């Protein structure tokens, strides 16, 4: 009997393709955000509200991930996004392979922003790098204030946590400070934002945050960085 050392991450294959995707996005000069949350947290509504504020001056592409239907792609297209719907047929997350496959047919030449709306799931998408610049986790106030510690992987992996539906706080017993404290334990370097995609509260800061980073990425690419 002998031991053969391997020392390889199982996610190596996904990660390798994610890096290829990253190169494609960089060559196109686009800023890419992977949005992860449970079903019903408001991912699509947030995208609609973002498109309302940006689509007239910024070319935005959305890659929608769902088990089935084109409902989300229809909604964002109606607000000015171009893009494509991926149906996983039962798969619980998007993988870099799925994104690579649609990138072949996607025209990114005029695009500035790419949002990838992942399959509604707070567990599985966390371990799949898609080639994004930012992995964002969206948590809404109606999901209970005990969630970050119950889902440590995604809150640890996501560099931005967005707390949505703050307009509903008067109707809920929700300890926002506790939620933010837990998120900071899992990710001391991560950023946290509070907003309501519905009422617009906090949306200006969200849009500014994205555009600042998109411009910074473009600038660093122009510098040959």
């Amino acid at each position, binding site marked *: *009997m002998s031991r053969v050392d391997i*020392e390889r991450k*199982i996610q190596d294959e996904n990660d390798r393709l994610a890096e290829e995707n990253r190169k494609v996005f960089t060559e196109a000069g686009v800023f890419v955000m992977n949005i992860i949350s449970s079903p019903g947290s408001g991912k699509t509504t947030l995208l609609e509200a973002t498109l309302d504020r940006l689509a007239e001056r910024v070319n935005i592409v959305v890659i929608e991930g769902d088990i089935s239907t084109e409902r989300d792609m229809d909604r964002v297209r109606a607000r000015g996004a171009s893009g494509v719907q991926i149906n996983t047929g039962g*798969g619980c997350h998007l993988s870099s392979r799925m994104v690579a496959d649609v990138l072949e047919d996607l025209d990114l030449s005029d695009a500035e922003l790419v949002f990838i709306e992942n399959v509604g799931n707070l*567990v599985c998408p966390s*371990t799949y790098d898609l080639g994004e610049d930012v992995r964002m986790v969206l948590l809404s106030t109606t999901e209970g204030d005990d969630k970050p*510690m119950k889902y*440590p992987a995604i809150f*640890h992996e996501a560099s931005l946590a967005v707390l949505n539906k703050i307009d509903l706080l008067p109707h809920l017993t929700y300890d926002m400070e506790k939620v933010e404290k837990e998120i900071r334990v899992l990710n*001391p370097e991560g950023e946290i934002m509070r907003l309501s995609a519905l009422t617009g509260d906090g949306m200006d800061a969200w849009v500014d945050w994205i555009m600042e980073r998109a411009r910074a990425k473009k600038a660093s690419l122009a510098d040959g960085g």
Partner: protein
Amino acid sequence: MHELSICQSMLRIVDSAMEQQKGSKLRKIFLDVGRGSTIEPVLLKEAFAVITDGGPYDGTELVINDIPIAGVCRDCEKEFVYEELAFGCPNCGSTNIKITAGLELDVKALEVDD
């Protein structure tokens, strides 16, 4: 959650290593699986049994090293392991901690018959 697709990725790594082992029989696969990795060892073993049934790795044992979630406090520098998920440093109570282990999903080694 998606232990079957994780098994498939794992077996691609194993296949590629076994190509260099020229006809040896694979006895064991050693994995590190962190408790925060989203992968459940029991389900992974079930998926493995299904996927290897009747094939060259039928009978290969999956040996899983279960890794707890661990951290270090940036304020008092104490290291600790979470048995239950409580947050904060057990020593000084600070929440300025860094998670240092528990998210692994790695193929560490194989055991083969010579």
